[in-house]
């Protein structure tokens, strides 16, 4: 899963995980990586951020930001995706 979704608060993250799981999306949980600022310390990992984001929007769950993850030799790099 190479994209992560961040949320303004923990309730939104919990709701989003439940909704995505119930709808059959591939989703994982991770602590918010250091270096990324968001209101909530939990981030969700997804494969398809476009479909996941659209699905959450339809369900009135607001995603704060989307990041693409990539790895260089030393660390994982998170680059914000412009929605």
């Amino acid at each position: 899963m190479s994209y992560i979704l961040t949320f303004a608060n923990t309730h939104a993250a919990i709701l989003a995980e439940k909704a995505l799981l119930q709808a059959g999306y591939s989703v994982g949980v991770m602590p918010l990586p250091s270096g990324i600022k968001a209101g909530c310390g939990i981030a969700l990992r997804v494969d398809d951020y476009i479909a996941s984001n659209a699905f959450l929007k339809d369900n009135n769950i607001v995603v704060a930001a989307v990041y693409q993850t990539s790895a260089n030799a030393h660390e994982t790099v998170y680059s914000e995706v412009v929605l």
Partner: protein
Amino acid sequence: MNNIDCIGQVCPIPVIRAKKALESLGEAGGVVTVLVDNDIARQNLQKMATGLGYQSEYEQKENGNVEVTIVAGEGCAVESCATDGDSGLVVAIGRNSMGEGSQELGQILIKGFIFALRELVPPPTHVLFFNSGSYLTSSDSNCLEDLRALEAAGTVILTCGTCTNYFEITEKLGVGEITNMYGIVTAMAGAKRLINL
């Protein structure tokens, strides 16, 4: 050669009897064969052998019985098997939630915790699951990808068989192996550091 017939005996008895037989061989070593009638006992015998640094193999016999052969020699003891990259860290997870208060919050926190374990270098030697923690290794757990990554990094993932039996999820194990209380105690006792969640 020591032949032990454990037909009709459930774990941990075959493991205990095999261990006693292996101990009686002393430093010279030798071969112990154990006849069991279920695959869980076979798995536990082989895990015990591997844990002691001994080689083992098994042969399927008639009537579904399995003969496990353990070769004890001047093999390495558990300690000397440890590699330089061995963290000696054991993580014991006894529930499917992290912390007290909100169950809903705890259930998402523990998923984040398991993901964060992947970041540890070197990785934990063992992650143990028991009581409701057993749900986290079940096939419908949302932690399987992270646990499989840990396993690929060399972490042994063990789930309490008594617990999966109690929750009726033994057949749904999605990662790692089933163990018994001896396996759990052995892993804990061999830990240099233990995180008990």
